[in-house]
């Protein structure tokens, strides 16, 4: 019994997960649910990476996206809760028809066009960690360093933006 059917089936499941969860993120009312479903999208995405043979990338995906970013988003959701479970109007009433039309107009042709891509048979096996590491630390070492500086800058920026000036607020409260 050949297991040739496995790959397409797994792909189909993962694809359904990605698209479905993504649609749910956009369409759901409750933001917490949206956030968690976003995490699901990220997981299915990681699975796709594995299917493609990029395990390292898949690992990074899970670590960074599902781990850090999802938590960050959940924190954000918590901090900006608007007391109670007030339901928000879901869509921009002003923009909803126009935006839908626009996106559909672009999406459908692009998606159809996307199917036209073909590639030669994939090379057998082989992980991606060796080529990846080699590239990152030799050809793209400079970009790598710059990326770390960028992270530093983002970190500092985030701290600066969210710092409370305790003394100023105390003075304001005393007035």
């Amino acid at each position, binding site marked *: 019994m050949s297991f040739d059917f496995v790959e397409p089936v797994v792909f189909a499941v993962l694809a359904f997960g990605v698209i479905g969860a993504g649609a749910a993120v956009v369409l759901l009312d409750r933001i917490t649910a949206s956030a968690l479903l976003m995490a699901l999208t990220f997981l299915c995405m990681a699975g796709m990476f594995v299917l493609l043979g990029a395990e390292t990338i898949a690992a990074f995906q899970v670590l960074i996206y599902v781990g850090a970013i999802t938590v960050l988003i959940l924190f954000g959701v918590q901090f900006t809760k608007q007391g109670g479970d007030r339901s928000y109007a879901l869509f921009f009433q002003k923009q909803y028809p126009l935006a839908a039309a626009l996106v559909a107009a*672009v999406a459908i042709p*692009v998606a159809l066009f996307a199917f036209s891509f073909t590639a030669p048979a994939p090379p057998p096996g082989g992980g991606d960690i060796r080529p990846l590491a080699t590239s990152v630390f030799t050809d793209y070492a400079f970009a790598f360093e710059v990326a770390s500086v960028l992270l530093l800058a983002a970190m500092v920026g985030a701290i600066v933006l969210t710092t409370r000036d305790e003394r100023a607020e105390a003075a304001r409260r005393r007035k």
Partner: protein
Amino acid sequence: MIALVWLIPAFPLAAFLIAGLFGRRWLGHWTGVIASAAVGLSALLSIGVFLEVLGGKEQTVVPLYRWIGVGDFSVNVAALIDPLSAVMLLVVTVVSFLIFVYSNGYMADDEGFYRFFAWLSLFVFAMLILVMADNYLLMFVGWEGVGLCSYLLIGFWFERPEPYLAAKKAFVMNRIGDWGYTIGIITIFLVFNSMNFLDVFHRLDQSAPAQNVMTIICLALFFGATGKSAQLPLYSWLPDAMEGPTPVSALIHAATMVTSGVYLVARSMPLFVAAGSSLEVVGVVGAITAIFAATIALVQFDIKRVMAYSTVSQLGYMFLALGVGAPVAAIFHLATHAFFKALLFLGSGSVIHGLGGEQDMRKMGGLRRRMPVTFWTMLVAGGALAALPPLAGFWSKDEVVTAAFVNGHAVLYAIGIITALLTAFYVTRALWMTFYGEPRDQHLFDHAHESPTVMTLPLILLGVGTVALGIAIGFPPEQGFIHRFLGPVVEAAGVVEHAPELATILLLAAVSVAAGVVGIAIGVLMYVRHRPDPAAVARAAGPLYRLLVNKYYIDELYDHRIVEAARAIAGASWAFDIHIIDGLANRLGWALAMGGQGLRRLQTGIVGNYALTIMAGLLLMLVAYGGYAAGIFGR
């Protein structure tokens, strides 16, 4: 002395600057003295120049500086000193000097004393430039300058509406004439490639252009002259110009500015002679104007108006002389007229001054006892105007009509004689109403007084000139000093002077004198003996009388036809400007503003809308790129 000729206009210019800049605050009545002294110096220099020209320097060009030099077109500021300009210089400066002295007394109580002398000095400067210029363009500068000063001085008492309306009328009519002048000089340049008198006349000699071109030039120049010299059809500003102070009327509107038209035609005689028929036009217009104005002067009651119409009429005589080919007679009459008309005006001014401002002759009478000097000088001037021998007016006017007869223009001669009769009549009437008979307004009469010496001395001097000038320069007729003096200029112009026989001269002289005497006799009969009574005549003539008193309704005609038409055009232009041109600009602005308002709606402030716009832009780019790549939009 001729080398210093540019000092002659320089003195009045300096006087203008001094009076204008320092007159109000610091110099007060000294401006009059300074201005009179300046013109006096100019007069002395003019006498010197005259003597030098007499001594043999017949044609000198004294350049000052190079004014315009653009390619082919070159015009210099230079003076042409020949007998004609020497005579004009002399007349202008001497008469101006006497009038300046007179004005010191006449304008003594006026607040604008310094302003008066500033403008008057500027006027003399411009007039001298006009007379001295050696090309048409520089002459035009002087031409315009005198027009400007005329405007300023007519409207001198601008607090009242009549003076400034009269000033405006004078200026506009002058401008209409100037249009003709400009056409003339432009055509001259196009044809002869120069505006210099000597160059033009020289080139005319070498190759005369077509007859119609010459006619255009001459008629255009003459049209300009009619504006300046108050001939038909541009004469009606001169009577209105009497709103100005009397010295102004004497200087500008009798002796100098109005003679610039005559000077222009005299100077351009070579052109006129070459154009043939235009000279006839000049003569006819002059003659018609002479008799036309004389008829109006018969019935005017304002003493200055009578003199104004008389000036128009006498200028007509000068143009008549030019038209029949006797430029010397024209200049001779110009000179004598300057003296006796200035005297008549200054005398009228003395009367008005003595009566505290009254100008209506119906309120005068019997003034000869109160103002003897004025009376006697005016009597002399009036006699000159009526052309009684041996006064100056007789010699010059007689030459004019003789020339008309001798050169074969019988009709023009007849018109001249009839006008002489009318002239004698109206001057008798004016003098009698002012100085003789019983005073019609006792109150005015009681307060009447003779004018101060500063005013009567010029009167006396002018009187002397009126008596002596004619004999001095015009005797014997056709061979007098002035003929010999201006001879070279006349020959150069190609004018043939017919020398009539002695018998003809005597006969024509007798006819002239007879016309004058008859006119005076009728005047005396009507006004002294009341046979027939003037009022009765006026009633009997009815409509004709009304026509004359209303000056043939010319002013109303002009106003109705021309001024209204001009106003309509101006109104239409204004409407066009406001509605269409301004409207265009306003609509454009409004459209841009509306466009801005419309585009402003894109800035909703809602970030989502901005994101949508970005998406739309992205769509556009994808479509464009895809189309290009797929070959739909062309490679």
